[in-house]
């Protein structure tokens, strides 16, 4: 590939063909319209230049009806393209339930990944081909953006909230991973690789590195050492909301609103317990904001989610 001139990025994910098709449609529409207008300007400039003997009699423009029809047609096509783009975007908004959950943390100037089995990677992400993968993104400092051009995916990692992006790799290989949102001095150095492998080679890779403690197990250890089990444990006598099967269940709040206990809810309740007071309970839980960092937060969240594993979401 060294001497050849690249025009299009590789298509290596389930989204790539769909996005490229829409891109080509937009390209056709734009060049179509652009060339028509350029042709008109060039023709008029040549034909009606001062002193030319072209016929300039008669009304200058064709009927207004034609103008409106032409404009309406262009607008109709444009809004068709809008609808196409919107449908593709909304479809991919929800990650499939069986996707592999990878926890990613963007921090000034590196990407840190952690597989469900506990394997950790920095600036490299191994994923299986043919299986959906959802990456939950958190940031420890400024806004970063997880961008894999070959997969046509991009999602900002914003401090203070958890965002998610998912894809299914379709072609084995090594693909660029960029940080797309300017994040300071080494922004252009915050790069990495996403390595898509055949499922069996991926499993072997995982096995080779299985030394790491599974995320949920690490979470359970923290859950006890930080004293969460003191209140939320099964045998505690202190009134605290039970976490058994909590993940993805509606929770009635003291402010008479009901929220779904998704990842963001779990995160907020650990870092800022006052934000959602569960109906019937006092606002007594301390904030763990200063006590744990993003890594440990993701472990505890993984543990709480594992408590809802047996229930069908």
């Amino acid at each position: 590939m060294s001497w050849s001139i690249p025009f299009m990025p590789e298509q290596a994910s389930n989204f790539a063909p769909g996005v490229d098709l829409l891109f080509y449609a937009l390209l056709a529409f734009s060049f179509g319209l652009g060339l028509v207008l350029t042709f008109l300007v060039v023709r008029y400039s040549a034909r009606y230049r001062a002193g030319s003997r072209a016929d300039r009699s008669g009304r200058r423009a064709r009927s207004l009806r034609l103008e409106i029809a032409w404009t309406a047609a262009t607008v109709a096509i444009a809004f068709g393209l809008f609808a196409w783009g919107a449908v593709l975007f909304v479809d991919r908004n929800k990650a499939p339930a069986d996707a592999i959950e990878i926890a990613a943390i963007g921090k000034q100037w590196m990407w840190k990944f952690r597989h469900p089995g506990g394997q950790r990677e920095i600036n490299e992400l191994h994923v299986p081909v043919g299986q959906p993968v959802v990456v939950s993104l958190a940031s420890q400092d400024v806004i970063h953006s997880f961008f894999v051009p070959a997969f046509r995916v991009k999602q900002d990692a914003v401090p203070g909230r958890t965002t998610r992006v998912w894809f299914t790799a379709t072609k084995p290989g090594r693909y660029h991973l960029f940080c797309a949102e300017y994040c300071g001095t080494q922004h252009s150095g915050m790069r990495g690789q996403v390595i898509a492998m055949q499922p069996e080679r991926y499993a072997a890779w995982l096995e080779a590195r299985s030394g790491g403690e599974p995320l949920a197990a690490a979470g359970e250890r923290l859950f006890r050492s930080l004293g969460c089990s003191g209140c939320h444990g099964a045998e505690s006598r202190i009134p605290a909301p039970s976490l058994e099967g909590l993940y993805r269940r509606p929770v009635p709040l003291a402010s008479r609103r009901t929220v779904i206990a998704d990842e963001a809810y779990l995160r907020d309740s650990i870092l800022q317990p006052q934000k959602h007071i569960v109906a019937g309970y006092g606002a007594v839980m301390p904030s763990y904001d200063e006590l744990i960092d993003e890594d440990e937060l993701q472990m505890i969240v993984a543990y709480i989610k594992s408590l809802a594993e047996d229930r069908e979401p």
Partner: protein
Amino acid sequence: MSERTQSEAFAAPRRELAADTFGMWIFLASEAMLFGALLLVFLAARIAYPQAFAAASGHLSLPLGTANTVVLITSSFTMALAHVFADAGRWRGATAGLAATGALGLVFLAVKGYEYRSEYLEGLAPVLGAPFRYEGPAPANAELFFNLYFTMTALHAAHLLGGIAVVGFVLARWRRTAAAGRLRRVTATGLYWHFVDVVWIFLFPVLYLIDR
């Protein structure tokens, strides 16, 4: 510059007064967007942390806030009177009204300063080096409340200070300005002053009266 109008673009003083009023209203529209943006930030935070903001709002002194609102409404009243007198050409009444308006503005700033001092001593002010001391629920969100409270009220106080300076300038140059010029200045100052009062009319309940 023709003596009768300030800018030679206008033939009659009446047209110039209309232009001044329109120009001032456009300026007030831009000021409304400035305060609107800050109010939006406050509203977003308050929606996110209702209980914390309610508790924090309790720490503001309601008597001082109410008293200040009375002072500012009264200053608007004296400003409006000055405009009424200026219309009727009773210049003594106009200058008295202006002076009262400026004085009441200073009273407002004094009361505000006293409030700030007591909040600073209580450890609630975002002053460098002064740690934030607060016992109620969610101290972090409460700190956000007080930071927004100080930002919005300080910006309002700065505008009030500007208004007092303008009133002082108009009074200082009173004798050397022609009748038409006096009327234009009283009108413009009045519009600005009433706007600053309207901003406080919204700030007071939004900041001080979160379910007492």
